[in-house]
């Protein structure tokens, strides 16, 4: 067992465990915290792949922006209570069964698929430095990049639309 493998297993365990706890915690705040942890462990995976830029972006976007939004909303709604009523037992049981089934099905398929043995490509070329990424993103992927801005614009207009109060509206 190489240290890298041990690190992987450790990180993987944290990822899965915190993900599970996110769902399992009754208090939404706890869930959010676990989720942040989960994101951090995923960032750890990225680091393992030597994708530092991505790891940083991931932490900034997810842990920094998205999770803050989540927490903010939770606070706003005053949801930091463990008062959630559970779904009916049958539903929960069903969810568990479906979860197990899905996992088994997918895992079985991937286990049975042609496994890749031996060496992986190691061209040695740089493929994930910031420079390279920037090149790819702004040359080849220029159009999607621009289009992503439209996506964000739509999201922005949308959110404004959803929360804008009109003069004519009462209340």
């Amino acid at each position, binding site marked *: 067992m190489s240290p*890298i*493998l041990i690190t992987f297993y450790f990180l993987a365990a944290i990822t*899965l465990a915190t*993900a*599970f706890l*996110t*769902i399992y915690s009754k208090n*939404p705040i706890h*869930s959010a915290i676990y*989720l942040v942890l*989960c994101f951090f462990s*995923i960032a750890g*995976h*990225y680091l*393992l*792949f*030597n*994708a530092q830029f*991505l790891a940083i*972006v991931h932490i900034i*976007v*997810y842990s920094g*922006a*998205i999770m803050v*939004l*989540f927490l903010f*909303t939770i606070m706003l*709604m005053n*949801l930091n209570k463990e008062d959630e009523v559970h*779904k009916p037992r049958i539903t*929960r049981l069903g*969810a568990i069964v*479906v*979860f197990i089934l899905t*996992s088994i099905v*997918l*895992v079985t398929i*991937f286990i049975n698929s042609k*496994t*890749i043995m031996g*060496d992986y*490509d*190691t061209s040695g*070329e740089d*493929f*994930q430095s910031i420079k*390279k*990424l920037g090149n*790819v*993103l702004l040359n080849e*992927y220029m159009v999607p990049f621009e289009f*992503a801005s439209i*996506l*964000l614009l*739509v*999201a*922005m207009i*949308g959110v404004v639309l*959803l*929360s804008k109060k009109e003069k004519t509206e009462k209340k």
Partner: protein
Amino acid sequence: MNNILNEIGIENYIFLSVLLFCIGVFGVLYRRNAIIVFMSIEIMLNAVNLLFVAFSTYHQDAEGQVFVFFSMAVAAAEVAVGLAILVSVFRNLGSIDIDNLKNLKG
């Protein structure tokens, strides 16, 4: 530079992603708090992102990582819109329990 997959193996990452994805699915099914359901969906997206990066390394190709950026943008946009909807639901309904959203049926 050594390929990290030589030591871990792509399968392990696939399994990890699949399991994480499945946990996300499980969360969507298991919880009735809309915000947790959102989080579960975020977990699903992250599972995929992780796999993208793994495949990117596997192919020694930057495109996978570029795609992760788009996926993050999408996730951010979705969360923004989703939370906006959530807030307006909360304001009208006083609850974000998705099992209470049963006005439309039949």
